[in-house]
């Protein structure tokens, strides 16, 4: 079981509030990813990181920012949460950019 911890596991927040989700890995993998899962859409890439302080946008990056100040931590921030950001968020890691992804157990976020 890949050492990936997502926190919190569940969160309910109000529209307009900032929210930060944390992904922590103990595998020392270079690549980290944030996906969101929504019914009918599967998983969609939000942002990814290919090293400390190196990040880039994915398919659905609007309204999200990320930071990676240490190899083991990748933070996803919703600056001002909206109801459309209600979703399940998954962090994933990989050793190289073409080795299989290992996912965390997800964070269920509800924006009311």
């Amino acid at each position, binding site marked *: 079981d890949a050492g990936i911890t997502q926190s919190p596991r569940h969160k309910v927040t109000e529209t307009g509030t900032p929210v930060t989700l944390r992904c922590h890995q103990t595998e020392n993998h270079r690549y980290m990813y944030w996906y969101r899962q929504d019914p009918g859409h*599967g*998983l969609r*890439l939000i942002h990814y990181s290919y090293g400390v302080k190196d990040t880039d946008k994915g398919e659905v990056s609007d309204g999200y920012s990320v930071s990676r100040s240490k190899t083991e931590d990748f933070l996803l921030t919703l600056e001002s949460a909206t109801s459309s950001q209600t979703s399940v968020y998954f962090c*994933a890691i990989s050793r190289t950019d073409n080795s299989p992804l290992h996912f965390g157990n*997800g964070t269920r976020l509800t924006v009311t």
Partner: protein
Amino acid sequence: DQQVKQNSPSLSVQEGRISILNCDYTNSMFDYFLWYKKYPAEGPTFLISISSIKDKNEDGRFTVFLNKSAKHLSLHIVPSQPGDSAVYFCAATAGNAGNMLTFGGGTRLMVKT
């Protein structure tokens, strides 16, 4: 527009029989395909993959078939077991995109005893 589609939201199969999960894609640049399996309240786990230079890849009870001309792949599970009950996601990527995976919407497989 979804570039990877799993047109069957759910599939029910009797234990011991074959499960066939299907996936279609539209992007001709995709050259590597993966299947992930997901249990409730857990993250997806990698199951099996196939490169576009092959048309079949086998791993135990799991076989993935790729038909490039039809832009179609399928996952066969033989024999199906109750523990296979999960949501299965098909994913694809292009060679220069590395792990920038495009996922299908998923198919929920239920294996009945």
